[in-house]
């Protein structure tokens, strides 16, 4: 998949490049959001685009999430292809009426006579004390109503390819970016390419346990998988689910057929998470393939506290995931191999920043 003209760039750069590609190819694509043309450029994901495409295609907006979502839907119904951005998914709650009652249903309600080619980029916050109202991971909320597509790309490669697919899709797509992915690099082709919006991707192969993970949890799961392999010779399948509303259950079942065991790792509150839905769908279709109870790895059912002291164990880590794997396998944790694993998985830097260079605030 990695082409000649490719290089390592960050997820944020890949998003920017995807937007740039899309705007270059299609003059109907417009971009709007609080801060889109400002100097910080939505964590640099929109940098330079106003200069390049002008104030007639790149917009800031009033603080009016519901109204402006409706405005974008109206523009989409009138031949534009708007891309809207919210700096936190929490702010999209103000727009849920327009997203659920209108965007998700317009094509259906009107018998396919019109459609809403709208992309809404939202960012899941985490760390540096963003607290209860700025770090929710609400993908499940947007996924339980038919008509909206909801995706969570993990790699820079997928970010660009899925964003291009989303923009070209005739349906409304919620494009959810985890803030801690923005700085992670991956090999990304310069030209434009598409990645499907409804397929999981295998990040790591193994036959012991299937770990199906969403967004940043796929990163953590991959670290766990590599550690398990290196320290203990335990090989697990890691699936990056990528799509949230159109769960690629078939791929998970394929893997479970091999492993007989399932762990689902999500960035959200445990109860009501899309991880629960995935487990339900797997057991409804293929419980007989499971040799042991499926396990969900997610955040606890309480709001995210701001204090870094309190938040220390809020998010699952590679260690959490590796432990879930080992517990499922009934592996012995009182071993040198396990201690080596723990060493390998030890995180470098504070728990509440995406990396060492981060000096807060977001």
């Amino acid at each position, binding site marked *: 998949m990695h082409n000649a003209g490719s290089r390592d760039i960050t997820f944020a750069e890949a998003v920017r490049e995807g937007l740039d590609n899309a705007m270059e190819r299609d003059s109907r694509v*417009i971009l709007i959001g609080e801060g889109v043309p400002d100097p910080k450029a939505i964590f640099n994901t929109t940098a330079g685009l106003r200069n390049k495409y002008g104030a*007639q*295609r790149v917009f800031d*907006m*009033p603080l*009016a999430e*519901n*109204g*402006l*979502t*409706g*405005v*974008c*839907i*109206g*523009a*989409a*119904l*009138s*031949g*534009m292809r708007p891309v809207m951005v919210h700096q936190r998914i929490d702010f999209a709650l103000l727009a849920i*009426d*327009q997203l659920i*009652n*209108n965007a998700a249903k*317009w*094509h*259906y*309600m*009107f*018998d*396919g*006579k*019109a*459609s809403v*080619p709208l992309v809404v980029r939202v960012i899941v916050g985490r760390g540096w004390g963003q607290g209860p109202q700025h770090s929710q991971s609400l993908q499940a909320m947007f996924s339980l109503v*038919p*008509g909206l*597509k909801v995706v969570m790309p993990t790699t820079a490669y997928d970010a660009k390819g899925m964003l291009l697919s989303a923009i070209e*899709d*005739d*349906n409304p797509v919620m494009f959810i970016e985890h803030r801690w992915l923005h700085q992670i690099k991956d090999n990304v082709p310069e030209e434009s390419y598409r990645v499907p919006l409804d397929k999981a991707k295998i990040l790591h192969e193994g036959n012991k346990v299937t770990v199906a993970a969403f967004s940043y949890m796929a990163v953590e799961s991959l670290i766990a998988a590599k550690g398990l392999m290196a320290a203990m010779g335990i090989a697990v399948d890691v699936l990056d689910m990528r799509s949230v509303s159109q769960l690629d259950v078939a791929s998970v079942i394929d893997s479970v057929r091999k492993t007989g065991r399932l762990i689902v790792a999500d960035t959200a509150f445990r109860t009501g998470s899309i991880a629960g839905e995935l487990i339900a769908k797997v057991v409804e279709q293929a419980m007989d393939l499971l040799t042991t109870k499926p396990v969900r790895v997610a955040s606890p059912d309480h709001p995210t506290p701001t204090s870094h002291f309190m938040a220390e164990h809020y998010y699952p880590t590679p260690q959490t995931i590796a432990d879930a794997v080992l517990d499922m396998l009934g592996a012995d944790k009182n071993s040198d191999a396990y201690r080596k694993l723990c060493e390998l998985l030890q995180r470098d830097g504070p728990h509440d920043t995406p990396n060492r260079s981060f000096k807060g605030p977001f």
Partner: protein
Amino acid sequence: MHHHALYRSMLRIRRIEEALADRYAEQEMRCPMHLCIGQEAIAVGVCAALSASDVMFSNHRAHGHYLAKGGSLNAMVAELYGRSTGCCGGRGGSMHLIDLDVGFMGATPIVAGTVPLAVGAAWAASLKKEKRVSVIFLGDGCFEEGVVHESMNFAALHKLPIVFVCENNEFSVYTHLSERQAKRPIYRIAEAHGLMTQVGNGNDVDEVLTLAKTAVQNAKHGKGPQFMEFSTYRWREHCGPDFDDHLGYRTTQEIEIGLKDCPIAKYEQRLKQSNSLSQADIDKYEVEIREEVIKSFEFALSSPKPTAMDAMERVYA
């Protein structure tokens, strides 16, 4: 002739809705239905100021808007009967109307839900440098939703070619304005948002048309968003085919005054007085309309019935 067109259009909407009301009891139109009987002049006057290329969004009480804009009667009646030939193939019913051929972009029942959409259509027109206006109908109750204010601000900010038409019938369901809004004029808030505003009698189709022409011209000539507030009166129950005066939420005097202020009867009288309309004209229109209405019901009732299989289609484009 122009007067005739206005008169006929109002009469047509009235007769169509009366027919719907009459046949509703047969229990074959199985969906909520909000009649605009008594309010026809606003839809007709506004639409008479528009070109075919102008676009429109509406709400739960959409029949008049849809018909005045030229929406297909057959497709509307069939929609109420839940048939495949309905404008939404049966998916929508009375509260979801669409006819893209005449620029009727859609009506939906979440109050204020379509207001920002209409602004978005105006935005698209402005970005594409197309000389069309976008029209949105909203009730006095709708004006209370925050999203309306967000929409007005954005329209004013970008000087968009949109016309807000507020149909103030003083009621949201059975609740009078005075239990919902402070005592102050609605249009003044639009004005403060930076919109050009006009106020008029919504039961006088000439007045509506005159104001609407000004608004549409202003909007088309870059003067930014326009807001018109029209007073009017809803004759029948909020939802359904009947009168509901027995419920006592409006006084007998109020109802009498309301019914007397019939936009059609008043206009008929005015045109007759100026000898612009004869009884023969009226009779002719009544006959034509009656036939059209009968045919539309026949069309609906003879149309194919969609199935549960159809219902599964078109979730995604």
